[in-house]
């Protein structure tokens, strides 16, 4: 364990370079370049606002600015989760030649996939902050929860990403299953709506470890309310468990990577 951490630390420059490569090649030769980091979440935010507007219309209420803040605060981290999971899943398959030809701690690939998407997330968050200021979202001490909630999301994403990266190396189906899963996950995650509208199924919705994070972010940023504590605790526990499981499985399978591709 200590040896593993030490090796990972020793190869931190490799992690940095792979992350950097992921970011650079994504935007090289694209006209919009880094604007894509904002555009993707923007599309999700846009879709969310449309959904909210439809809900409001059906319910016969007005769409208020706090709704806009609410839905965008949920959409941006969700966009990060989806993109990071997708990239991490493909991170080993996409680096076949390296996995087969040169030794290195291979968890660097899913880690770098998550990290490069996190950079995009930070860019989008900056844009989001400007947007929130424009629509007049208030500031409160509850914002201190934000880093904690984001950390939980990152831990969960890394855990899931390493697990899926290793699994997709052995079974190519995993890649497609992940796509399907990520497409439909939005129905069991409170992205476009609040978990509360599910009434008695709220518990079911919150069992998804991403849900309490999104709920918490919406509560703390858009509504200046504390997050649902117990659920955040649950989400943190699940995320850490997934991370530990993911890394253990990954390291257990790693010796077979080169011969399984």
């Amino acid at each position: 364990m200590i040896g593993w951490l030490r090796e990972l630390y020793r190869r931190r420059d490799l992690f940095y370079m792979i992350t950097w490569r992921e970011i650079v090649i994504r935007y090289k030769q694209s006209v919009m370049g880094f604007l894509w980091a904002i555009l993707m979440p923007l599309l999700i935010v846009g879709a969310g606002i449309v959904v909210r507007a439809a809900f409001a219309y059906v319910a016969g209420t007005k769409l208020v600015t706090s709704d806009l803040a609410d839905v965008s605060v949920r959409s941006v981290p969700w966009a990060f989760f989806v993109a990071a999971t997708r990239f991490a899943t493909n991170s080993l398959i996409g680096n076949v030649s390296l996995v087969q030809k040169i030794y290195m701690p291979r968890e660097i690939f899913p880690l770098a996939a998550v990290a490069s998407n996190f950079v995009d997330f930070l860019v989008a968050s900056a844009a989001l902050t400007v947007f929130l200021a424009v629509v007049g979202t208030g500031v409160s001490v509850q914002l201190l929860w934000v880093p904690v909630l984001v950390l939980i999301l990152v831990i969960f994403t890394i855990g899931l990403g390493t697990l899926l990266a290793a699994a997709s190396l052995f079974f190519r189906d995993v890649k497609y299953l992940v796509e399907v899963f990520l497409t439909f996950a939005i129905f069991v995650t409170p992205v476009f709506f609040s978990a509360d509208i599910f009434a008695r199924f709220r518990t079911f919705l919150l069992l998804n470890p991403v849900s309490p994070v999104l709920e918490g972010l919406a509560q703390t940023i858009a509504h200046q309310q504390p997050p649902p504590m117990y659920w955040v605790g649950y989400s943190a526990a699940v995320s850490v468990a997934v991370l530990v499981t993911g890394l253990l499985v990954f390291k257990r399978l790693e010796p077979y990577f080169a011969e399984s591709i």
Partner: protein
Amino acid sequence: MAAEITLAMRNVSKRFKKGEMYDSLRDLVPGLARRLLGKAPARESRDFWALRDVSFEITRGEAVGIVGNNGAGKSTILKILSGIMKPTSGTMTVAGRLSALIEVGAGFHPDLTGRENVYLNGAILGMSRAEVKRKFDEIVEFSGLTEFIDTPVKRYSSGMFARLGFSVAAHVDPDVLIVDEVLSVGDYVFQQKCAERMTQVVSAGATVVFVSHNLHAVSDLCTRTVWLHQGQVAGIGPTADVIRAYLDRAREGVKDGPTEDAYIADVKLKQRDGTETVAVEAGDTVTVEVLVRARQKCERLSVGVQVYDDSSYNVFNTSTERLGSGSFTVTPDQPFYTTFELQLHLGAGTYLLGVNLHRYDVQKQYDHRFPAATFFVKNQQDVRGAANLYPRVAAFGPATVRTPSVGAAK
């Protein structure tokens, strides 16, 4: 031996599964079902041992070659040495920083510039960013791509790509360097540069493991060689001895037994002192010793020798008949020896020797051994081509025109 052991392999075996691997879940489910129903073939029959019980030790500062036919387990041993694969049984220990050059330019991204790829590749090979930064100019200069360094590598030719890749790899300063035939990249000039660099690495005290088909390079670089045959160590020892044994075996594989009444029983390539050799200096004299045996009396036989370079170009050929020593008769109880003394004024490279047994008047070929021997020629001077004409150069003054002095160097 008191010397420090840097790398040790102890009873290393590696098993692969032949046949189906479950690549997708769709295959896995019926596959498991078949196995449960007992219809799958027995596990053992699908096993394939790429390495069996391989043991050797390498001491600090030693350069060791690994040779063997295709499928002998060279690639597998390389992957185990570099840590990409784990052995099925046995252990491998390494002391110090290990770097493996299995593929040059691994991780190069076509959209990134040469400069960016140098940093990326350096990190992949285990260098820190500070280290790459320090060596950057040296790396670029070595590759000879200074003016293209800010061009995306997708615009590079494959040669340029390989040169940049090797340059980065050559500047990793490992304790143990594992090299796989990367010397064969680029043009002749660059290959020479690579070979020089490898020699430097060796003389700087690094331990080198060199896996190659190129026996010439192995005999140039390595003091000791391991010969792998069908996943097992078939020979280990001083390079010249192991290579000779390996070539002997290769020759046996080619020969399908004498079918004619007279045949070539043995061919030896000997140095002036009478010992067998595989590596010579340009200009050295060697003797080709041919032993001809017969099952029945055969008359008017002639022995021919040919020398081919590594691109199968016939550099030289002659025969006893053409040399005017006439033909000879061989009887079952009296084998016949022929010797050819050759002065090898050849360019550096690998050459193959062919020997044939022929009767001219009826145009009958009794036997043909090719390759009867393989040898490498080294040159002191940097001359290219098939022959060494021992040039000596004189500098001209600005106004006077003089004739260069004529004569062999040294």
